[in-house]
């Protein structure tokens, strides 16, 4: 009986193979030449900060050329950071809330095998550097006698802050990737971010997504995936397992679950400061394999509670337990117009619609099931 079932399911699967899984190469598991931290969140006033780690796993010193991307929106009338126009009330006159995209780049010099960490709100420079070169001791650290000289990590430019960080392993002089091919390409970096709420003592950590270098001509245009790729491809389809917003946590049987999704495009033009039009298409499956869909533009960075992705009324969302009907679901997220990277945060709260009632949160990575066949590009200034 099972053999028959197997044949039937196999035949059905053959018909559907156009949409089946293909494995991708970009991942969070190996040291890489390009790191992406999709979510940096800081709100000093409310005790939220992001702790960032970057490490060199090789026995040689290396350098990372990094880019903070400030994805805050700002009011046209007050210049304040805003989420909606309602935040732009200036004595009863409402301004528009305009999305922004500002990059700040800086360098990190790492000695061999060195881990380094800092708070996004504070940065790391000067006397705070662990291996400071002095006149008498120009190379104070490590087996290869290196130093962190030249490192100046600025604090994020404003608070509150929502944005991302990308770091590219680079030549110490040109600040561009080293010309290389195959095994000669340096892939020495690992990274991690921990978004922390001090008020609650609540930490959500995730590892930076890494793209390994496979070939590099050393110029300012980094080709991710595609023919003659310099870096392994980004995801065309990401998979996010999630607990439906509003579902009751099965362990406490009290708290309500909600999730936040952050997506960033892999293509970025840091030189021309232009934004590629990327759309995220969502296919959402519940335990009954019932499928619902929606889509949303990803301009620079999408950071949203999942039940706000498709509607302003969370209980009517396809990510709401009221609609899904089961506790957990799977969302397949396809990037149209470019590859995507991202991270998910699961929160438990006494009321999932009230962020102040949160009791705990945790971050986890999205899975990559289909790689982009088209190339993404990062253009460096």
């Amino acid at each position, binding site marked *: 009986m*099972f*053999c028959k079932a197997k044949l039937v399911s196999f*035949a059905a*699967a*053959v018909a*559907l*193979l*156009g949409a*089946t*899984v293909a*494995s991708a*190469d970009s*991942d969070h*598991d190996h040291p890489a030449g390009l790191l992406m931290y999709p979510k940096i969140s800081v709100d000093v006033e409310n005790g939220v*900060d992001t*702790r960032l*780690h970057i*490490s060199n*796993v090789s026995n040689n010193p290396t350098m990372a050329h990094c880019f903070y991307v400030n994805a805050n929106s700002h009011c046209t009338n007050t210049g304040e950071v805003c989420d909606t126009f309602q935040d732009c009330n200036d004595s009863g006159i409402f301004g528009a809330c305009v999305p922004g995209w500002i990059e700040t780049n800086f360098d990190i010099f790492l*000695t061999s*095998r*060195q*881990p*380094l*960490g800092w*708070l996004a709100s504070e940065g790391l420079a000067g006397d705070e550097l*662990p*291996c400071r070169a002095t006149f008498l001791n120009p190379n104070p650290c490590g087996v290869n006698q290196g130093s962190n000289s030249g490192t100046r990590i600025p604090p994020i430019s404003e608070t509150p802050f929502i944005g991302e960080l990308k770091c590219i392993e680079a030549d110490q002089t040109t600040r561009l990737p080293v010309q290389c091919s195959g095994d000669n390409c340096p892939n020495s970096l*690992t*990274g991690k971010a921990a978004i922390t709420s001090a008020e*609650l003592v*609540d930490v959500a*950590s995730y*590892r930076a997504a890494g793209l390994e270098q496979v070939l590099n001509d050393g110029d300012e245009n980094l080709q991710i995936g595609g023919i003659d790729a310099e870096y392994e491809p980004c995801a065309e389809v990401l*998979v996010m*397992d999630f607990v439906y917003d509003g*579902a*009751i946590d*099965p*362990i406490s*049987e009290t*708290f309500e679950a909600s999730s936040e999704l952050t997506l960033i495009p892999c293509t970025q033009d840091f030189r021309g400061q232009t934004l590629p039009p990327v759309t995220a298409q969502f296919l959402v499956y*519940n*335990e*009954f*394999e019932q*499928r619902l869909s929606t889509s949303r533009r990803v301009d620079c960075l999408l950071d949203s509670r999942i039940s706000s992705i498709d509607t302003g009324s969370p209980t009517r969302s396809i990510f709401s*337990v009221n609609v899904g*009907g089961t*506790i*957990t679901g*799977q969302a*397949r997220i396809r990037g149209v117009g470019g590859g995507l990277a991202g991270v998910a945060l699961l929160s438990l709260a006494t009321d999932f619609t009230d962020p102040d009632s949160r*009791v*705990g949160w*945790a*971050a986890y*990575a999205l*899975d990559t*099931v289909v790689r982009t066949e088209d190339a993404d590009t990062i253009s460096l200034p």
Partner: protein
Amino acid sequence: MRLLERNPRLSGLMLGLAVLALGGVRAQAQPDTLEISSTQPGSIAVFPKVISDGTRDTIISLTNTTNMMAFVHCEATNGIGECVGAPAGQTYYCNSDVDCDDVTDPTGAPLEDVGPCDISWQANDFGLILTAQQPTFWRVSTGRVQDPELLSGDACSTGGQSQQICPGFFLGDSQAGASILPAAGAFRGELRCFQVEDSSGALSTGNALKGEAIIEWLGETGEGAGQISAYNSLNVQGSGTAPAELFTANLDGVEYASCPESLTIDHLAPGASDPVSGADVEVELTFVPCTYDPLNPTSMRVLFNTYDMIEDPLSGGDTRACWANYTGSLDGALRDRATTYLRTTARATQTGNCTAGSADGEPCTADSDCGRGGFCFDNSCNGGSAIGWTCAADGDCGTGGTCGDPSGILGVAETIYTGSVVASSADVAHQVGTRETADSMSTSGDF
């Protein structure tokens, strides 16, 4: 447990059908390079850290990412032990003898050594069927059972029973009536879910599985209840062709992905204060051997190297069986370091290769071949009564033991923050390189 032969005629028929049907259809691509990945689906989903011990509980999330039905056989191995010298009526859980050295009684008074730690390495198995693209989950302490009358809703309940009933569709092991049984007592250990062909339990390399573990603190609201840490499962990718053995996956980089040569973990220093919240920090590093046999525990030999931000290394080593959860000190390599941010490398030592020293990773026959500070490792017993001990032949290891290269390792790091409440965060370790020695993972054979 049933042992079934793969039917070669049926396999051939299936292969033929596949070739014919795929002629004009886009084939299901297989990975260019087989990997053990936390962000790509695989054929074996490994959850190295699963806790259900009265202080915390775990939700396991498992998803079929393909358009084909997926049969899954899971093996849960409990690595929890009890300190056998504990006073009557008191229970102290442990993972090694060290954990029994420094305990306090319920009043907080210190106790003398209550060891040794007795661990039974109990393995339980169960089966699941996932329809195409189906996500599912269960709570470890309760398991889950299907109730056809509760198809939709926002909450699970135990309804006075031991198993949790949840809205949704949950097709468990048919022999147990569509259910996963609750963990028997306290559980600290690991879970491995193998994709199998069908109810025969024969392994499949369909690369359909991915998952997450969500570890949640129990307790009253306001005392840390609801604090969670989460990590992605480590998914061992398969080649897409039928494995050579029905119930054993060969992790040789050809049939299934090879295990990493070493792991590297970015973390805060134990004993430090969290730079944002000021909470006290502890770190738990959990490792499982790559080689797995539910009927015979596998040893792993781990060497740690921890680097601080001034690149000052400290190292330590240890041999453990089955499941290792290192808390705090790691032979002193982690505690009281000069800087807050650390990086720890954990390496599974390989027989006949130098670990550390100037000839790190090079072949050797003696410690002197490895340079200053290096070690040349011998064979050790994998399983048997002498598990973990150096050996020259299988006979040195006792019944069921084999003498050879110790297993590779997989791992998860969890940081515990103690401030106004207890919180935690978890990440799987980064992988560096691949082992030359093949590991293997076996199931108990049935579905």
